[in-house]
Each structure stands twice: as C-alpha cells, then as structure tokens.
C-alpha cells in the first residue's frame, strides 16, 4: 500500500497529463460524481459507470502495474460485500424474499457498492497518477476554493506521504528489534499503534504545526506558489466531464421515476 501510494503520484503517461493540473482535478472530481450518480441497477447506468472509469483510467495513462494493484485492492475492499448475499436473500425465513427474484434483489445492494466502489477507486487512482505532488499543489491552488481549504488539503496530502514513510520506519524498527517474520512484524506493528505510532504521530503533528506557524503557512495566500492560465483544452475536458455528470444525473432521474 505504501509503495502503491508513493509510486502512483505522477506515474500516468496518458493524454490527460497534458491538461492543466486544476483541469485534471476538476474533471476527475466531476467524473467521480458522475460514477456515483449513475444507478448501478440499469443497463445504461452500468454502461456509463464502466465507460467513465475505463476512459479516464486510459486517458490518464495509469501504468498497468498500478491497474493490477488497484484492482487487487478494490477486490479486497469491495468483493467481500457479496458474502452478505446469503444473509440478504433470507432463504427459509418466513416472509423473506426467496427464489431467483429474491436472490437478484439481494444481489442489488452489494452490486451497487462493488460497482460504485471500483469505479470510484479507479477514478481517484487515475487522477492521482495524472498528478505529480507538485501538480497537485498547483491544481488545488488554482481551483476556486477557500484559502483555508486549499492549505489544509495540500498539507493533508503532503503529510500523508510523510506518515507512510514514518509508518515504514516504525515497521522496520519493530522488524529489526523483534526478529519476527513478515506476519509477526505486521501483528507487532498493529499492536504498537497505540503505544508507538500514535504518540509519534501526535508529536510530529505538534512539530509540523509549529513549523507552519513559524513559516507563516496559514497567513500566506498559497497562490503565490504558481498561478496557471486556463486553456481551451482544459475547458473542453471539464465541459465533457460535467456533461457526463449531467447524463448520469438524467439516467438516475429516469430510473427513480
């Protein structure tokens, strides 16, 4: 997971990488919203979700290795929802749905989670692969967001990367000092979270906030770090993404009615 996070940023080589960073973030966000809005229970909705996720992943040029890794991560996160199907069918329960119709209706809820989950994961991951850490900062700063929000979001992403590195150091220290194998180390790392990891992270957060205060981070309009000029291709990409969001909303509206 740590390597996946580190390696993913800026690893994409698709045509979307040529868009301005803010256009990549805005288009990614609009497509993410479209994938959530489209219903997973209709053919048109499924087709739209699949199209949006696949097209954006391809446009961002997500490396095959990352595609495989995120597919595995998605499988681990979302496929277990199908284990709920036997519970939801209520087979043999008086008054519960039964037969093929009951099975299909029980399948609907996990299917909804799995399809939307996979699409959301790939859309987020593809957007991340299209942005280097520096692009991300420039993109967030160029978006019309409140100054406090941009400052916090940028630090969350930056400090998350630092946190992964810190976790790696804690894990390495535990592995070396305990002499355990991989599984033993994982267990020891988990057991150490409240006693080792958490105090270290709290201490780190304390120091980082002191550094932010000293360096004037909060009082500075971070847009001084690098404004960008919008181009026609950026507007077209955002327009297409918003169009797909509107289509998803229309399909959802039609489905509800």
């Amino acid at each position, binding site marked *: 997971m740590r390597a996946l996070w580190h390696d993913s940023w800026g690893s994409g080589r698709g045509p979307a990488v040529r868009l301005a960073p803010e256009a990549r973030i805005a288009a990614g966000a609009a497509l993410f919203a479209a994938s959530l809005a489209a219903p997973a229970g209709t053919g048109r909705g499924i087709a739209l979700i699949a199209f949006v996720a696949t097209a954006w992943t391809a446009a961002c040029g997500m490396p095959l290795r990352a595609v495989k890794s995120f597919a595995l991560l998605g499988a681990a996160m979302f496929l277990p929802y199908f284990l709920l199907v036997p519970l939801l069918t209520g087979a043999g329960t008086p008054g519960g749905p039964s037969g093929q119709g009951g099975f299909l209706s029980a399948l609907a809820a996990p299917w909804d989670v799995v399809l939307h989950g996979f699409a959301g994961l790939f859309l987020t991951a593809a957007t991340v692969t299209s942005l*280097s*850490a*520096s692009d*991300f*900062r420039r993109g967030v700063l160029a978006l019309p967001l409140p100054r406090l929000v941009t400052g916090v979001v940028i*630090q969350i992403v*930056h400090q998350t*990367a*630092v946190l992964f*590195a*810190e976790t790696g150091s804690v894990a390495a220290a535990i592995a070396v000092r305990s002499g355990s194998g991989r599984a033993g180390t994982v267990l020891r790392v988990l057991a150490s979270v409240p006693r080792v990891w958490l105090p270290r992270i709290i201490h*780190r957060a304390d*120091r*980082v906030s*002191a*550094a*932010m*205060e*000293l*360096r*004037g*981070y909060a*009082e*500075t309009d971070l847009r*001084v*770090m*690098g404004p960008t000029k919008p181009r026609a291709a950026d507007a077209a990409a955002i327009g297409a993404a918003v169009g797909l969001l509107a289509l998803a909303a229309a399909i959802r509206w039609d489905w509800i009615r």
Partner: protein
Amino acid sequence: MSVAAVLAFDRVTVRYEPGSRPVLEGVSFTLDRGERAALVGLNGSGKTTLLMAAVGLAGHEGLILVDGIPVRRRTAGQLRQKTGFLFNVPEDQILFPIAREDAAFGLLRRGVERTEAYRRAEAMLAELGVGDVAGQPALHLSHGQKQRVALAGVLVTGPPLLLLDEPSAGLDPPGRLSLARLLGRLDAAMLVATHDLDFAARFCRRFIVLAEGRISYDGPDASVVSQAWGTEA
C-alpha cells in the same frame, strides 16, 4: 542589556506544566547583531526549549527581546519575520513536496516574483550542495539532504537572526565543513544548538553551555566544554 542585542534573554524560566520542574531556569544572555554563538549542552539540557522560547513557541516567565521587541503571542508574527528557525528534524519543517518549492516559499510569501524566488532558492540549494535535487520530491531525499533543503528555506530570506537546532546532524563530513564555512560567511546573528563542538568552533567565537536548564558557562573557550564532558583530546 546591550542596545546592539538582536536577541536578549532576561531571567527566563520555562515550564511545560504549571508548577512542574523548570526546563529552563533564570536564563540570561544577549546576542549582538552579527554575533555567532554555539548553544551546547547534554541531551535534555534545554537547548531546543530555549530556541523555541525565543520564537514564542514555548511559554516563558521573564523577558525575551528579539530586535528590541518583547516575545509575546501578539508580537510573534512580527518577530518571526526577523528570525530564521531550523528544526532538528527536517521532515517537520518541509511543507512542500518539491525541494525547490519548499526552499522558495519564504521568498514567495514576502512578495518576491516567482522566477526570481525559484532562482534564488536554487542558488541557495546549490550553495548547500544539494542543487542537483532541487526538482526532486523532498520525501525521497536522504536525511542529510532534507536537512540542507530545510536550511536553504531558512537562509534564503536572509533573516538578521538565525536559530538553528542541530544543523549539522545527519550531514557527512564534507557537508558539515561546507555548512560551517557558509554559516561563517553570513552576517546574521546566530544561536546554534549543537553537540558538535568541532563544527561550532569553525564559525562561533562564543559558547553558551546549558546544564539542567541553567547557563553553566558563557565564554569563548570551547575546551571548557570538552573538559566538562570528559571528551577533550
């Protein structure tokens, strides 16, 4: 207190909890404009706390003046424009993903034009021997390289007072030597917390020794310190 003092401590006491044993007790000294002093002491002697107090990050009793202005919560912002502070853990200080961006931040927030700010940041990184990593993610650098990136961010704005906490930690011998030479060339007053007497002796002519939160020696003779520590050659 000297009128030329850029930093003055007058009977300063710092406690982390009210009523607890003080971490610093009755500390008084002044640092004149352009003067370079090493703040030395064993682990836990209060060096970092003293530096923190000087920029208002540790609450204190007594009086601390930076350039004649008392260190208080409401003056903290104004005072921090006059000071450059280096933390002993560079990861705490680096707030931007790319080395060049982090080093340029102080200039950009002072209104320096972007191209010029990046040019000056890169020049400072090069002077500190890390010019080749200017465009790299700071997270991927070694500890010594991160230390120099953080230091570049401090030095590039040219503050009149530098408070440096273990600046040579994690640097290789050539890196320590070039850093000592660079610090020796600067006009800024500096207070450098360190255990590294050889490093400090290259550019400091004054040694302030802290022991259990009190100043036990303040003078020009580094050998007093090594004798006290039992580390003299």
